[in-house]
């Protein structure tokens, strides 16, 4: 179709340029066509290094394809295609252009074969995606976008420093296995960790995603964290630390998700939870675990996109997204309800849905490698994710008490995009072999044996039973209008408050010091002035100029008079 050396992101960047210059139906057609053409091309791309540039003393590899990067390349094309269809009704140049550039940056990062190229796209991901948040055009969105941008750029800067250390250590910038043996390794891990929403660095995600536009969040959920997962899978497979970090990521967000009111923020927390499963898989590092992590990333892009799309549809049609305002929407949005339930079943890993065929790989790998406690945590997280993403989202949006809202199903393009995603979820769930054939390793794994299916069904049905029981007992926490404190409290409240206090104290001390010095100074002046008062009266008295002229005249006159008298005497 075109030359092999042209990396996939170029077409998206050109598409962004065209989207900026065109309007209406033409723009829509071009935007839909680009991921399709690009995907068709990518399908034919063989593994290997397709582009190499010498830069100073280093080899840069902007385009390297192997099983790992191709896998992410495919799913990013699917995600771009679905979210572009989903946002076809939007008439906002900023968003359309940002969408194309953002998808392109993600592809660029995934096919980057060296750390410098990775850094460039790492930062581009931040700069292009922030416009999807700002496009909401509210003050909250503006501030959330700012915080998002600062944190993302910080991650990029740490990556750059790490890359420089790495180049100094090894003399090469190649992006392969890095490991934690050097400072460079740790710095790069921190950079990846920030973008991957590691605990305590996760808050940019739950802060920014719910503030983006309904269509923007769908794109956001697909790319940034998955690029980070890809980077971890390439640079840190088998790093044991990641197992514990990932397990923490699966567990802590579900507590916040249960009490969160904003349903898109609930999904943002569950996104961290899902990424946790992938991080655990990468940390275990066996062929099965890595396969599981990557397959789960692939599925997560689709089912999390589907869930964000269904909540975006609710927000688009009703203007509300808080659980406390919604309910009873199944009556007039039946199609959205069904599609949302498909997404919910997929994320909860119900048998025959996509989550099941990938999540069970990570869980099996945890058991096989003797991570008993981690396995228990993952099991708890599976039950928990069903509890909040599987039940809470559909229940509070579409069922629960009737809110009186009577919104109709969303525009056809939105429904169609959700339909594609839902079909993929079910197709992968029913026929996982297609997905498995794309994975880097051949493990001959079969998720559908009686043990797995029964165990998972039991786990899910009884967490549902717990939900029913708690609801009947009235113990289920009601949806309340509220803000729940999270780590962002530290930089949004605690640090500004402490700084305000510190600076208030500094200004106060500074003011007191100045006053004291100035007081002393004027005291000195007064003292000197008073000491020389007598003399000063004589010396510094001021007289009109006329006086002086008069006295000069008097002097001259007396001089003349004395001279005249002298002459007479002589």
């Amino acid at each position, binding site marked *: 179709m075109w030359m092999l050396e042209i990396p996939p992101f170029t077409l998206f960047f050109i598409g962004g340029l065209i989207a900026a210059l065109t309007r209406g139906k033409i723009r829509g057609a071009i935007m839909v066509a680009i991921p399709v053409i690009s995907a068709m091309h990518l399908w034919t791309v063989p593994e290997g290094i397709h582009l190499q540039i010498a830069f100073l003393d280093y080899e840069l590899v902007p385009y390297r394809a192997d099983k790992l990067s191709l896998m992410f390349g495919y799913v990013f094309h699917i995600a771009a295609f679905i979210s572009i269809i989903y946002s076809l009704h939007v008439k906002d140049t900023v968003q359309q252009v940002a969408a194309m550039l953002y998808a392109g940056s993600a592809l660029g990062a995934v096919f980057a074969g060296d750390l410098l190229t990775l850094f460039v796209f790492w930062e581009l991901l931040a700069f292009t995606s922030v416009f999807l948040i700002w496009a909401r055009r509210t003050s909250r969105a503006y*501030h959330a976008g700012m915080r998002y941008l600062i944190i993302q750029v910080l991650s990029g800067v740490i990556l750059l420093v790490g890359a420089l250390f790495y180049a100094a250590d090894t003399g090469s910038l190649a992006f392969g296995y890095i490991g934690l043996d050097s400072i460079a390794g740790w710095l790069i891990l921190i950079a990846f960790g920030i973008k991957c929403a590691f605990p305590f660095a996760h808050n940019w995600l739950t802060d920014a995603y719910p503030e983006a536009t309904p269509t923007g969040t769908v794109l956001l959920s697909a790319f940034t964290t998955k690029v980070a997962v890809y980077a971890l899978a390439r640079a840190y497979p088998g790093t044991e630390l990641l197992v514990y970090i990932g397990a923490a990521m699966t567990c802590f967000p579900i507590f916040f998700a249960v009490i969160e009111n904003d349903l898109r923020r609930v999904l943002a927390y569950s996104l961290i939870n899902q990424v946790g499963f992938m991080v655990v898989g990468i940390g275990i590092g066996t062929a099965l675990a890595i396969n599981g992590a990557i397959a789960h990333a692939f599925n997560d892009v689709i089912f999390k996109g589907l869930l964000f799309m269904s909540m975006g549809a609710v927000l688009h049609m009703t203007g509300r997204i808080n659980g406390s305002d919604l309910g009873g929407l199944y009556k007039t949005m039946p199609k959205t309800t069904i599609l949302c339930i498909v997404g919910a079943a997929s994320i909860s890993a119900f048998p025959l849905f996509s989550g099941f065929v990938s999540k069970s790989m990570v869980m099996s790998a945890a058991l096989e490698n003797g991570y008993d406690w981690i396995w228990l945590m993952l099991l708890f997280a599976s039950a*928990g994710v069903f509890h909040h993403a599987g039940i809470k989202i559909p229940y509070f949006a579409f069922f629960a008490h009737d809110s009186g809202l009577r919104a109709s199903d969303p525009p056809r393009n939105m429904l169609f995009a959700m339909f594609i995603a839902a079909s993929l979820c079910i197709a992968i769930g029913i026929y996982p072999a297609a997905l498995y054939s794309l994975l880097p390793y051949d493990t001959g794994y079969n998720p559908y044996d009686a043990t797995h299916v029964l165990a998972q069904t039991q786990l899910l049905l009884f*967490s549902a039973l717990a939900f029913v029981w708690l609801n009947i007992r009235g113990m289920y*926490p009601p949806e309340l*209008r*509220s803000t729940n404190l999270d780590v962002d409290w530290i930089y949004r409240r605690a640090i500004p408050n402490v700084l305000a206090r510190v600076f208030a104290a500094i200004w106060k001390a500074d003011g007191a010091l100045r006053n004291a010095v100035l007081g002393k100074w004027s005291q000195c002046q007064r003292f000197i002035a008073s000491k020389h008062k007598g003399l000063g009266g004589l010396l510094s008295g001021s007289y009109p100029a006329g006086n002086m002229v008069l006295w000069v005249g008097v002097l001259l006159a007396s001089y003349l008079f004395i001279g005249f008298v002298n002459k007479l005497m002589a």
Partner: protein
Amino acid sequence: MDINKSNNEKSDEKDDKQYFFDNPKNTKWVMNIFYACCVLVVVLDFVINRHVYHSWENLPAFYPIYGFVGCVVLVVIASWMRTFLMRSEDYYDKSDDKGCDHPDDDHDQEHLEKNNDENTHKGASNQTENKKIGDHNVDA
């Protein structure tokens, strides 16, 4: 899934129409199917010969109990977390406007309490609402 299909058919009609879950009988019916499924999977636990990786899996009904207890613990802890994590909805917005003067903290607190009152009031009504629904409107 069949429940939703029947929703789909019904919702094409006018709004004053009774919807699927408006009828307590339907809800009861759905819930009974759900309970039957729960019983069924536990019975299957003893029928199907399973290969286990971990000794805990040999405990009778390990997964059902773990799922149920896990979720109850999750909800109880999460509700308890509300006692110290919950703030008014515009908690951060206010701080954006006026910088961070501390005299405002008092005002904040005051506002928060007011808001909390409202919340608990609303919460209480929500809670009863939930309770009511809980009896007949859970479709999971």
